[in-house]
């Protein structure tokens, strides 16, 4: 019965004939499609499934009455189906509308995928491709070749920990597997917080945004760059080292001018914020952003922005609707799993993945993995060194401490050292707590873009300002906090760099010793 949920129009009046016509999963307009012939087996099965008890009884009773009862039951079921179907198609509709416009699938795609229709599979690959690309902030176009898209989706899903082997075995031409993809999509929906994340990512920016995260940002380019430069290694001898120095100087100069420009930008931003304070409709914000100031100046240029805002509003409304209808969707997904289990897909998987596991051992060529392994190695080397160092230090200190304590035992007891010791213990625990907090993986780090808002430190001095401040959103972070974080990050990066340089110094010193007749005096 769950079968029909996505197909409100699957209602058939008769229900008299065999399972084929009963299958509510087949809406009229699809019945004639070429795919109709495909899941014949499933059809039969689903028919059986739908009737279960009643079919048996009807069979044994044989007569008209049994038939009627079946009909009644079917009618009731149909009504239920219709209701649930309606709810489900509403849920699917809301879900689709809550997805970003560029990746929005037709609600029909979901339904087709539920029956593993091959014609939905391409749509689904494209959908997943678009969604994952957006999440990963990559550029993409609809015209990317399908096998690239599929490869990307597979590896992105793998990256996020989707471990269902069937997905990875789907053909690379995208000709089949829409139901597998539906499962993956639903998994992503929850696991990655797909909708929320996409909404937040694609948020229409009207403010002066700045990113607050201290993560390394441009790494991808650097990584992509490395393999390209390696072939040039052969040319190295021919490249004058002065060229390198020149490049380095240029880079430094660019940084400086970037800094100057940032400072200039700050000045302007601050002025705009200060001078327009109190003008914004949104009291939480209080002042205009650059965009909004320009918008006041020439509103005719911002029709598109308004349209974007409106379409985003609709998307958000769809999201709210989806949140209401969400249970229906998940229940429906469970029935999808039920069906697959019935078909034996699930058991089959057990064998295949064992097979799969043994398969590609040669993947270590992946630069991502190499990079990660390298990082792990380096980290563990560092930690080992640190451990040795600590070990020595602790041993040394301990010995010294024991000696001293032994020598002054009585004296210490008199002084009531144990109380002091307890205090010290507490303070040390407190000190180390910061570190443990750092170790906690899911600490709420700040990421992404934030809208800059000027908040006067002395709101009281301005009459009537009190109310504006009272309504502070939870998500607001203060610049002081961010600055503190940045300072910490800066210090740790500086240390890291210094360490690398120290390493170089050691190695170069060793090299210098090998140079005949030359003494190197470091600055």
């Amino acid at each position, binding site marked *: 019965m769950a079968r029909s949920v996505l197909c409100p129009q699957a209602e058939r009046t008769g229900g008299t004939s065999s399972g084929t016509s009963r299958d509510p999963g087949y809406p009229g307009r699809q019945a004639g499609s070429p795919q109709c012939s495909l899941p014949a087996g499933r059809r039969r099965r689903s028919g059986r499934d739908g009737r279960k008890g009643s079919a048996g009884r009807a069979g044994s009773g044989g007569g008209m009455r049994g038939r009627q009862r079946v009909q009644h039951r079917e009618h009731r079921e149909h009504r239920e189906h219709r209701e649930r179907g309606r709810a489900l198609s509403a849920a699917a509709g809301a879900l689709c509308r809550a997805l970003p416009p560029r990746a929005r699938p037709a609600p029909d795609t979901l339904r087709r995928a539920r029956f593993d229709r091959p014609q939905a599979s391409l749509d689904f690959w494209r959908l997943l491709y678009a969604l994952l690309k957006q999440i990963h902030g990559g550029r993409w176009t609809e015209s990317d070749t399908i096998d690239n898209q599929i490869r990307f989706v597979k590896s992105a899903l*793998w990256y996020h920990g989707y471990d269902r082997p069937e997905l990875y075995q789907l053909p690379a031409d995208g000709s089949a597997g829409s139901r597998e993809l539906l499962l993956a999509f639903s998994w992503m929906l929850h696991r990655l917080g797909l909708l929320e994340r996409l909404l937040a990512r694609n948020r229409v920016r009207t403010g002066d945004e700045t990113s607050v995260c201290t993560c390394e940002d441009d790494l*991808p380019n650097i990584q992509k760059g490395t393999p390209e430069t390696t072939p040039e290694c052969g040319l190295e001898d021919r490249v004058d080292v002065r060229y390198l120095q020149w490049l380095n100087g240029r880079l430094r100069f660019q940084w400086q001018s970037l800094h100057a420009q*940032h400072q200039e930008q700050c000045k302007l931003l601050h002025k*705009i914020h200060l001078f327009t304070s109190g003008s914004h409709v949104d009291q939480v914000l209080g002042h205009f952003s650059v965009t909004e100031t320009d918008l006041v100046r020439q509103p005719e240029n911002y029709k598109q922005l308004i349209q974007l805002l409106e379409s985003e509003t609709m998307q958000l409304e769809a999201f709210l609707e989806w949140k209401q209808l969400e249970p229906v969707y998940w229940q429906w997904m469970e029935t999808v799993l039920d069906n697959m289990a019935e078909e034996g897909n699930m058991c089959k998987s057990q064998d295949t993945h064992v097979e799969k596991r043994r398969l590609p051992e040669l993947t270590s060529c992946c630069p991502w993995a190499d990079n990660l392994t390298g990082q792990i190695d380096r980290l563990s080397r560092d*930690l080992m060194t640190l451990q040795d160092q600590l070990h020595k230090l602790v041993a040394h200190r301990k010995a010294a401490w024991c000696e001293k304590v032994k020598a002054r035992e009585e004296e210490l007891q008199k002084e009531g050292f144990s109380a002091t010791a307890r205090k010290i213990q507490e303070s040390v625990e407190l000190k180390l707590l910061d570190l443990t907090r750092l170790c906690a993986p899911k600490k709420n780090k700040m990421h992404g873009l934030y*809208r800059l808002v000027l908040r006067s430190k002395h709101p009281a001095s301005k009459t009537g300002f009190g109310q504006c401040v009272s309504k502070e959103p939870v998500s607001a972070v203060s610049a002081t906090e961010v600055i503190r974080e940045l300072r910490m990050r800066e210090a740790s990066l500086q240390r890291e760099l210094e360490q690398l340089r120290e390493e170089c110094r050691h190695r170069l010193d060793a090299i210098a010793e090998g140079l005949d007749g030359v003494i190197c005096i470091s*600055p």
Partner: protein
Amino acid sequence: MQTKGGSSGVVLGCRSFCRGSLGDRAHTRTLRRSRFPSGCGPLRGGPGHTLRPPGLVPQPRPRGPGGGPVPVHIAGPGAVCSPRGGEEEEQPQPGSGAGHENRPSPKELEELELLNRALEKALKVRKSILKSPLEAPGATGKKLAGEGPAARKAEEQQVPVSVEDVPESTKVGTGSKKPGSSKKPSAYQLRAPYRTDPDVKKPQRKAPARCVSQGPRTSGKNSSKGVASKQRGSQRTATGSATEVCAPAEPQKTLGLSKSAPNEQQSFSVGDSAGGKNSIAAGQELFDAGKKSCGFLGESSKKEDTAGASGRSPSPGTGTLQEKGCQLKLPLPYRIAYSRNSRAWEKCHLCQTSADAAAARARFMERIQTTFCSPKADFSPAEIEEELRVLQDVRSHLRQYVEAETADPPTLQGEYESLLTLEGLQTTVAQCLQKLQLLRAALESQLRLRPDCTGDVGSCSPACVPARGQMCDTAGVLALPLLCYSSFQELRDLFALKLQVSMLHQEIALQKVLMAELLPVLEPSPCPEGSARLFRAIHTQLCQGGRSFPVLVRDELGD
């Protein structure tokens, strides 16, 4: 009538009030005063409402219908503007959770319409009464402004108007005297048609309303234009921007008028017309004043703003924005769209998953997880990366701690503390190493499951290297992300540090690459002759970040 408008706009009124009282205006004033020390200086600088020198009063009159009514209109908004303030502001307001309907109900519209008619009448009466004396309106306006809640409701316009009308008349009076007069004529000429325009249109209800409301907005536009041009760093002169201003004014007017959504439009324009009518002239005043100050403040603020990198053009902009910034209003369509949008965000943020959904979802996830290759996989590749990043962070902190503890502490207590700390660190390091082992194992098992990676970068790197910072928690994701700063210095520090951090990231990456590529060049150490120079260059690059270089001394004594 007034009370009615008042009651609808209490909150907003307060806001506009505080808007009017923002500190920066005082700043502007001082500036202006210093620019025009005699006669007009104090005039402009002063609160404006009352300090009008009598000599200037008659000035507007000769201008006839255009100039005459000005003060009247000005008085108008102070007294009558309130309903409009309430109305116009209210539209977008629901966005912030006031629980209002977005569109006004038909009944409300009707009431508004009545209200507007009444207001119009009142305006006419006022006009006839207050035709001549200029002080009166100013005073009225001021009194009203100070009248407590009711007056506070008076739309922001009131404040600008009363402030503005002073410069306006000043300008008229002393037009030729002013140093910046070269700019003024154009402003003045521009104004004339504007001024009469609304009056001509008065019989129609909507049109003037729109135009009127353009007034203050236009001035805002004007000023912001300056700023934007400053932003772009274009070398637009003050005059240039002043004259240009009028261009955007027209389109916007038509935009407002031609806007669709008849129902909405009607209500809004009605709302506009209420206060708008009153402030027809006021709007003009504002507009002109804005224009003028654009030319005029430009020069004074130029002095202040010598540091401005983009030279001349920024200053006028700053000046105007500085002056008008607090009275700017966002265009209505945007305000509507914005507040709907932000309300929707707010709702989504507060929206929670129902227990039903959570349960069904959990069941689904659990079931699908059982079909995974490694149902209890500890870390996904993404998580491995994340954990590794955390550990790297911890490493650097650990180092810091250890460094802090290496020196022998002087006291016994200190020694004890240091010992305990070191032991604690030891445990932490052990834990990290353990975790690292787990990660390594997880990575290996993940790689075995990896979909066919052909090894070429293009195929796997997109997924392999997701944009960092995107993998944050989804929990607070739907909240409006705000970063509050409280001072210019803070903003500068923030930007400087951000750059510093990304520079360091780059520098570290470069250092690694250079180490990998340059050290092997030296290590075989083939020819001593060339290698000394090379050595020095590389040493400079790798150890000193290119900032200083080592001295190489040829030791020839041995020979």
